């Protein structure tokens, strides 16, 4: 059986096809647009793109689609000229069709559309009735119309000959736009499409019925589609007794449609003479009060989905009784359903948005047996160098070296739709969190399989499967791939590519623009907080997951030939193949035939031996103590392989005293797979971080190891209650600290970081962490949580640590540790109550319709009328809860006018369709609008923090010092919520809170500030320019004047960090810049050098070490935004370093390494020291700082 294709569209509008003989979704690269709907049949696939135009994809076949045009040249004899084109007035046209009734000169033949081409020029048909003619193909007759012969006779007065020209359909294996000829009627874009009817008639060949529904609910049918005319010719309206939202057409004469109200319409009277049918009959929704949202029909079946996602099967449907007899409720919750060839059924799951196949559908059992999820990877998941990924990279999505120029979302939204499309066609517009996806690679070599203790033996050949190693993009990849890719995106200017990409405009620029729009009095942190939560709760929360599995929006099986006996390799491929192959191995399997004497002997002797050596001595103590104790519990585990879902597991921590007296432990997760009990385990001493993820539905936490950090794929667990989760977290974190010998408060050198949830983590640096050239990889850093809730944290090596909450409150670290929940290793005093306030945002969405204008009546396929920013999750005012149970509401919902892109007076933003880029004024082309509502919530927690009243702050910086520095007064600068610059007096290591604020005069508001080791103060103004503060010293802590530093061309700076000598800034487009030419005599430096893109924050430490929070870091299983990264190769003479080292990530928001002044013990390579005279000066230059090294080497 030849292979055929299943087509599907993901939630981002990308079209994929899956071959019945294949095992992965192939991205339809030709599709430059996003598609809303696809309807496939075997020979072609119809679709509606996001521009509301209809597109057609005709599969190339061995026999080309060609059509023969013909016309006749007619001549009459007269005595003067012989045969000539001078005809009698009563004669037919000189050029005519075969009947002679229609005038058909050669020039009148036009190609029906630009998708056709002429094969050659016109030529004379020299055949007549199968015999060759002579003399130019003429045939003769006495008169028109008469019988023609090929021989000229004495009485032949007229003659004619046939001219032929072939045209060929050239647009095969590509999407072509079907020109819409409805210029006379209202512009009413199409909303749904379905294709069928090929079984109705054999003639003409390949005749299809294409039904479509417009946004206004009208139904159209496309006429004239057949093999020779794949595009069809004209749309004809079919009157409907209501507003139709969706329609389905089977291979035969079944056509069902869904009405807006949730009832169904059945078309009657469809036959070979009347593809349109004659009348509608109404069928009630299966469930009273719950309307149908989707219907799918086959030859003899009808399936429907109601609003509550229930699936229904219609009994008794056949061509004599197209309405059927009754509904049967089926198992499963689906959002859409499709019936393909042989009445096979396909659906998209409601919860997981996965593609499901109805198993067991046969002619005798049309309802099938069970839903089976199609779990095959997408092609782009396997290699991120695929075209789709690279075109995304062109938009600067990867964390890399490409400079992204200033781009404004508004640039294109005002542009003419044609040009917008020109741009839009080449750059797929990804959704939030969707980025360049090498998604999850196939799991064959996943470690969990290797860790399974199975009775089956793996075959040795399995070793050939490459391990799922990290494929972290090197810095120069995007550029390389940019050059390599042959996509038309190359023609885009960088600003265009940035502009049409709503991801950037909606999300990443959001934070930056909020700062601009909110003005001096604006609540910048509150608005930015949500944008960051929405952007990258990756790896922490489900809705976006770490991009784990593809979410599908639409599937169509009309071209997919599956018979009941067909074996598909689409289900759990990775796992089953691995297990199948291991089945073949032999050594451990039972081989009953093996009853050889030698084997018998061994069994007997072994049991004898056990008896002899052990039976009488069982009272002896065992030499190896089993684990000291075990804590067990039940939990849910986010399964590592597809389909990812929460599965119930037994969870156990075995703790034992290690051989050298240290405590160690192993975590076990026991799960059942295919009725087999399996487990996977993690050594406690390999755990690098435990991240609690509280949300309203689950009490979950994530466990990372270095390996899982590389994969960007933590182990995720959910406890039944919050208390249980805290119990486990406390136990696990104590175990982790024990196994690493970490106790007590964070050291002065500690590296602090904050997640987008406001959780605070601290890591103890080792000397090797900043060793050169071989530092400890930062994915091996162990992070422990410290109580409290902060947005920003800054520290220095004297142990002065300050933080700023989401509500701009300033906090100083008390020197304690722990807090935030009971049971955690915690200092008894120095723990205080801390509160924080932030905003939660939801969106109200509306669609325009011609009758009532904008209403909350969306299309069934639209996003929820109240949703989150992505539109995927329903968020009403009532059901939206605070971010976690720790938060409580402290205000009511209010309209938020400070939204990037601007709003109208009522807070609305307009766009052509969901999801798109929104703008603040309504235009003619806008069909949808949305507005943002905000509500404040408050958190109360505990942690080692004390408030520093009364001025609310937005940024802070503390003088970095060497580890043994004896600075009396620690310089601490801050920026108030209003943009004023402040200098804290009286800060010492004993009184880290200081005594009072000193205002530093400025002309304009500021947003970021940093002080270097020799009191060099840099600041970024709210307009994005940089300033250097002159003459700051220990004696003159406030300095004297500001020097303006031009920002990099076209960029607005956002944040600055100054280390010992290095100055780094981050701009609003995520570019990281290094300041060149900074010398003691000219501390302002000379120029900016671009280091990297996709950087969110930078922290430069007292060793000039450079750490950043980077976005879009690629792991082997997933991608993480908000990732801690460290610059490698930073040396005194090479302050820029050369590459990145990737640490913990997935939702990190802030890091400070300014406390870590621990230099690595210098590795002197004996054989090289003498020859390396060139590096000597470096080391001597380094001496002044060396006194800080505790080792003193």
């Amino acid at each position, binding site marked *: 059986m030849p292979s055929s294709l299943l087509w599907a569209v993901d939630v981002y509008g990308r079209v994929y096809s899956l071959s019945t003989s294949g095992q992965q979704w192939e991205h339809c690269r030709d599709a430059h647009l996003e598609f809303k709907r696809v309807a496939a049949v075997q020979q072609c696939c119809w679709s509606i793109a996001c521009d509301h135009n209809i597109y057609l994809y005709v599969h190339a076949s061995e026999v080309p689609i060609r059509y023969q045009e013909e016309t006749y040249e007619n001549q009459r004899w007269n005595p003067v000229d012989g045969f000539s084109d001078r005809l009698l007035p009563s004669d037919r046209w000189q050029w005519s069709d075969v009947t002679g009734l229609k005038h058909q000169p050669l020039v009148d033949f036009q190609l029906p559309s630009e998708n056709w081409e002429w094969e050659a020029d016109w030529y004379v048909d020299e055949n007549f009735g199968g015999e060759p003619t002579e003399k130019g193909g003429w045939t003769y007759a006495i008169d028109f119309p008469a019988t023609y012969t090929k021989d000229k006779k004495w009485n032949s007065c007229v003659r004619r000959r046939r001219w032929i020209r072939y045209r060929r359909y050239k647009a095969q294996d590509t999407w072509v736009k079907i020109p819409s000829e409805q210029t006379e009627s209202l512009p009413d874009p199409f909303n749904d499409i379905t294709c069928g009817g090929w079984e109705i008639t054999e003639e003409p060949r390949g005749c299809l019925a294409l039904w479509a529904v417009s946004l206004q609910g009208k139904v159209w049918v496309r006429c004239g589609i057949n093999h020779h005319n794949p595009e069809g010719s004209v749309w004809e309206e079919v009157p409907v007794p209501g507003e139709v939202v969706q329609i389905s057409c089977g291979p035969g004469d079944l056509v069902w449609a869904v009405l807006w109200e949730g009832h169904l319409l059945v078309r009657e009277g469809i036959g070979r003479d009347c593809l349109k049918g004659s009348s509608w009959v109404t069928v009630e929704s299966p469930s009273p009060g719950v309307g149908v949202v989707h219907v799918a029909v086959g030859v003899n079946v009808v399936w429907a989905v109601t609003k509550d996602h229930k699936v229904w099967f219609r009994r008794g449907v056949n061509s004599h009784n197209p309405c059927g007899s009754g509904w049967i409720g089926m198992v499963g919750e689906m959002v859409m359903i499709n019936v393909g060839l042989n009445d096979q059924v396909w659906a998209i799951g409601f919860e997981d948005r996965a593609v499901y196949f109805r198993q067991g559908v046969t002619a005798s059992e049309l309802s099938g047996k069970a839903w089976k999820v199609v779990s095959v990877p997408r092609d782009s998941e396997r290699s991120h160098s695929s075209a789709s990924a690279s075109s995304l990279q062109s938009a600067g999505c990867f964390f890399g070296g490409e400079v992204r120029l200033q781009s404004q979302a508004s640039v294109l939204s005002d542009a003419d739709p044609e040009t917008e499309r020109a741009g839009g066609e080449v750059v797929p517009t990804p959704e939030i969190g969707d980025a360049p996806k090498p998604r999850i690679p196939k799991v064959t070599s996943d470690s969990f399989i290797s*860790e399974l203790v199975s009775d089956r033996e793996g075959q040795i050949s399995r070793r050939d499967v490459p*391990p799922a190693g990290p494929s972290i993009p090197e810095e120069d990849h995007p550029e390389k791939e940019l050059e390599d890719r042959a996509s038309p995106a190359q023609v885009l200017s960088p600003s265009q590519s940035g502009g049409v990409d709503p991801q950037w405009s909606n999300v990443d620029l959001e934070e930056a623009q909020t700062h601009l729009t909110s003005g001096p009095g604006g609540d910048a942190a509150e608005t930015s907080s949500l944008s960051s939560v929405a952007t990258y709760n990756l790896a922490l929360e489900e809705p976006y997951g770490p991009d784990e599995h593809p979410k599908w929006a639409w599937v169509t099986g009309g071209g997919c030939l599956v018979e009941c006996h067909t074996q598909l390799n689409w289900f759990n491929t990775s796992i089953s193949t691995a297990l199948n192959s291991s089945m073949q*191995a032999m050594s451990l399997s039972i081989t009953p035939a093996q009853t050889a004497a030698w084997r018998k002997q*061994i069994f007997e002797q072994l049991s004898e031996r056990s008896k002899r050596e052990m039976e009488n001595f069982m009272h*002896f103590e065992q030499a190896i103590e089993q684990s000291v104790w075990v804590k067990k519990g039940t939990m849910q585990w986010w399964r590592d392989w597809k389909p990812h879902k929460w599965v119930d597991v037994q969870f156990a921590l075995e703790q034992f005293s290690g051989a050298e007296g240290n405590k160690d432990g192993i975590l076990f997760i026991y799960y059942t797979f295919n009725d087999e009990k399996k487990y996977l385990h993690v050594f406690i001493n390999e755990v690098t971080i435990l991240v609690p993820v509280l949300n309203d539905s689950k009490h979950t936490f994530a466990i990372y190891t270095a390996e899982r950090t590389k994969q960007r794929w933590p182990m995720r667990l959910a406890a039944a209650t919050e208390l249980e989760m805290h119990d486990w977290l406390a136990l696990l974190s104590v175990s982790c600290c024990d196994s690493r010998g970490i106790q007590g408060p964070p050291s002065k050198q500690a590296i602090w970081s904050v997640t987008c949830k406001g959780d605070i983590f601290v890591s103890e640096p080792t000397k090797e962490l900043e060793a050169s050239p071989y530092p400890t990889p930062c994915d091996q850093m162990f992070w422990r949580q410290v109580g409290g809730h902060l947005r920003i944290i800054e520290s220095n090596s004297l142990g002065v640590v300050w933080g700023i909450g989401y509500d701009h409150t300033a906090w100083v670290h008390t020197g304690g540790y722990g807090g935030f929940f009971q049971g955690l290793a915690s200092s008894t005093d120095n723990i205080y109550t801390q509160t924080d306030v932030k905003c939660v945002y939801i969106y109200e969405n509306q669609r325009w319709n011609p009758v009532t204008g904008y209403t909350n009546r969306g299309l069934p396929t639209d996003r929820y009328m109240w949703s989150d920013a992505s539109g995927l999750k329903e968020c009403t005012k009532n059901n939206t809860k605070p971010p976690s149970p720790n938060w409580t509401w402290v205000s009511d919902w209010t309209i938020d006018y400070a939204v990037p892109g601007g709003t109208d007076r009522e807070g609305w933003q307009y766009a052509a369709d969901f999801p798109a880029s929104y703008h603040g004024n309504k235009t003619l082309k806008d069909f949808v609008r949305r507005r943002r509502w905000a509500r404040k919530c408050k958190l109360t927690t505990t942690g080692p923090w004390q408030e520093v009243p009364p001025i609310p702050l937005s940024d802070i910086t503390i003088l970095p010092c060497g580890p043994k520095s004896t600075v009396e007064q620690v310089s601490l600068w801050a920026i108030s919520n209003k943009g004023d610059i402040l200098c804290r007096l009286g800060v010492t290591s004993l009184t880290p809170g200081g005594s009072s604020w000193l205002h530093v005069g400025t002309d304009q508001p500021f947003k970021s500030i940093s002080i270097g080791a020799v009191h060099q103060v840099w600041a970024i103004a709210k307009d994005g320019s940089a300033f250097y503060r002159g003459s700051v010293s220990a004696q003159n802590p406030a300095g004297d004047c500001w020097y303006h530093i031009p920002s990099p061309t076209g960029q607005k700076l956002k944040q600055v960090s100054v280390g010992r000598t290095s100055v780094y800034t981050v701009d609003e487009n995520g570019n990281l810049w290094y300041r060149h030419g900074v010398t003691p005599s000219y501390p302002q430096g000379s120029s900016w050098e671009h280091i990297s893109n996709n950087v969110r924050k930078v922290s430069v430490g007292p060793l000039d070490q450079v750490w950043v929070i980077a976005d879009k870091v690629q792991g082997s299983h997933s991608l993480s935004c908000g990732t801690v990264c460290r610059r490698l190769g930073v040396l005194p003479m090479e302050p820029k370093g050369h590459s990145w080292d990737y640490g913990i990530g997935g939702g990190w928001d802030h890091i400070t390494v300014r406390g870590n002044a621990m230099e690595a013990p210098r590795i002197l390579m004996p054989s090289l020291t003498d020859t390396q005279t060139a590096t000597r000066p470096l080391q001597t230059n380094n001496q002044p700082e060396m006194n800080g090294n505790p080792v003193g080497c």
Partner: protein
Amino acid sequence: MADDKDVLRDVWFGRIPACFTLSPEETTEREAEPYYLLLPRVSYLTLVTDKVKKHFLRVMKAEDVEEMWFEYEGTPLKWHYPIGVLFDLHASNTALPWNVTVHFKNFPERDLLHCASNSVIEAHFMSCIKEADALKHKSQVINDMQKKDHKQLWMGLQNDKFDQFWAMNRKLMEYPTEEGGFRYIPFRIYQTMSDRPFIQKLFRPVSPEGHTLTLGDLLKELFPAAISAEDEPKKFQVMIHGIEPLLETPIQWLSEHLSHPDNFLHISIIPAPSD
């Protein structure tokens, strides 16, 4: 009929009852009670005798304590041989429990390796595994493993976790079906009556003609004396894990099932009891 997997369990969970007595040469503050322990056959003496050490240290002065070592009937016991091998080699056919003498002085430098900590044992154990895999798969399997996989093998042995160990070790026991076995069988033949520590040579599990080679074939080539003729009385016992497999046992099967955790097939050849 038992499953081959049961063999792995029996091998792993083999225990030797031992009675540790402090050497009379040691100076004690009061009399030391003997200490009884079930020793895993597949482990190493110094890895499983922390309790023994603690027990005797209680009656000794700190200044009298040097590195602990063991001796059986005058023979210093090499900690780097698996316990089962030491027992089979020196003490099989004797009454149980196995009487081991504990010393804290006069470390026999010529006979024993020092064992300062468990990391020395770990290093030894891992080097054996690596050597074995070099023989079996040209080191391909062990090199494909990650550090944590190596650690899993070691932790499995150290903590007596059969499942944990075998989840990883089974990879080391795989081979391409078409080849019928490992490249070479990692084995060591020990004998009491020789100065040579052990015999180790390259030996393939399948003959060039394609025949499956057996334990008998191995011995024929490396220790012919171990094979006694039909009519002669048996001169030697060929012991693996305290049992005497038949000579027709395929050597590949033995390697897969009766190897120690270090992936070597340790074969002890001892004089047959003369009774």
